[in-house]
């Protein structure tokens, strides 16, 4: 069993694998991240059956926290399996912060949070802003501190899908990209290592100042979202709202009371960045 350890924001992971290759890829992409001694979560990439270690190798994700019925992935997508497994551990097991399925970037100590379903563009938009002077904090989860209300960084590898891959390669031709994983259940995927300052400052949070619901592929528009609707949507975007009980309630109500919320539609990265800058200027 090969092993790899990595610290991302406040969480430390240990990833074991029956095969060397996925971990070698991870080690290369995560080379600038701290390697922790003690870990919060263990994840293992295991063969789905005795023969599957060698013959059309098929990866099953196992870990401290698991979901049954998960479909195995081919070994070529082992890196994706490891990333999904890390997401799953956080989603099911992290209790120290309220988790929102969202991306975030920071400027001047204040945080822009973007939330939406897969495909809404929150991940790509955070990567784009991260290369436009904002500090990237994460593209999958935003962690809210129940005591201070601050958003805490969780800067994993940015997961770019399908057309977003070429778009980001054009924006960041010298970016550190992972291998192209073609034909995954979510289409083509390529990981992008976050910028150096995102990794260096992964211990520094900030006060959330603006919440956006981005929607890529529609004519440009900005709509106000009332706190009641925001609250309801965020409970559905949180993996551990219910599990946190009273702390979840007070953290989320504080958030919706203090952070203005807008839905934005856009048809290009440039348009999105312009909308973001305008709204930040006016509201944050």
């Amino acid at each position: 069993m090969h092993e790899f350890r990595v610290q991302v924001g406040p969480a430390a992971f240990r990833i074991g694998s029956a095969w060397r290759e996925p971990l070698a890829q991870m080690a290369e992409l995560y080379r600038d991240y701290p390697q922790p001694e003690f870990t919060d979560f263990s994840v293992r990439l295991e063969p789905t059956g005795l023969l599957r270690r060698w013959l059309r190798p098929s990866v099953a994700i196992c870990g401290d926290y698991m979901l049954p019925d998960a479909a195995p992935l081919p070994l070529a997508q082992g890196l994706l399996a490891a990333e999904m497994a890390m997401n799953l551990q956080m989603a099911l097991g992290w209790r120290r912060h309220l988790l929102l399925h969202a991306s975030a970037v920071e400027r001047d100590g204040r945080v822009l949070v973007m939330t939406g379903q897969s495909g809404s563009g929150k991940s790509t938009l955070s990567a784009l802003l991260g290369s436009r002077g904002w500090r990237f904090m994460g593209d999958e989860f935003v962690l809210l501190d129940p005591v201070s209300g601050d958003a805490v960084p969780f800067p994993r590898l940015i997961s770019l899908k399908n057309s977003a891959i070429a778009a980001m390669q054009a924006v960041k031709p010298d970016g550190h990209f992972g291998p192209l994983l073609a034909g995954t259940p979510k289409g083509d995927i390529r990981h992008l290592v976050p910028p150096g300052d995102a990794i260096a400052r992964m211990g520094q949070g900030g006060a959330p100042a603006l919440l956006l619901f981005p929607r890529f592929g529609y004519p440009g528009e900005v709509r106000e979202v009332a706190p009641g609707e925001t609250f309801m949507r965020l409970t559905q975007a949180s993996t551990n709202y219910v599990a946190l009980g009273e702390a979840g309630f007070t953290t989320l109500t504080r958030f919706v009371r203090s952070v203005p919320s807008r839905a934005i539609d856009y048809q290009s990265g440039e348009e999105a960045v312009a909308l973001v800058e305008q709204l930040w200027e006016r509201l944050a």
Partner: protein
Amino acid sequence: MGSSKILYRAEPADQRLVEPLDMMTLIYQRRSGITHMVGEPVPQMLAAMGDDAVDAAILAKRLAKTFDLGGAADAVAVLSERLEELAELGLVERITDA
């Protein structure tokens, strides 16, 4: 009185956290850990019930002191339904007359 009457009593106020927002009020129920998003007239009902055991008619009278309830008979019927809804959720308890 012939038939037994059901009265309703709200949970003690310190058993819940109440956050009024724009179009709804959030109620976090400490006992169950469940968050309820409630619309009118629920927060007003809970406030009017205080610590007392009431039925829909009594509750309607109390609410009518501060609010315009529209038609009287309708109000009692709808409040009955609301009280049952809250009882199902555990926000109020049912007390049956012995």
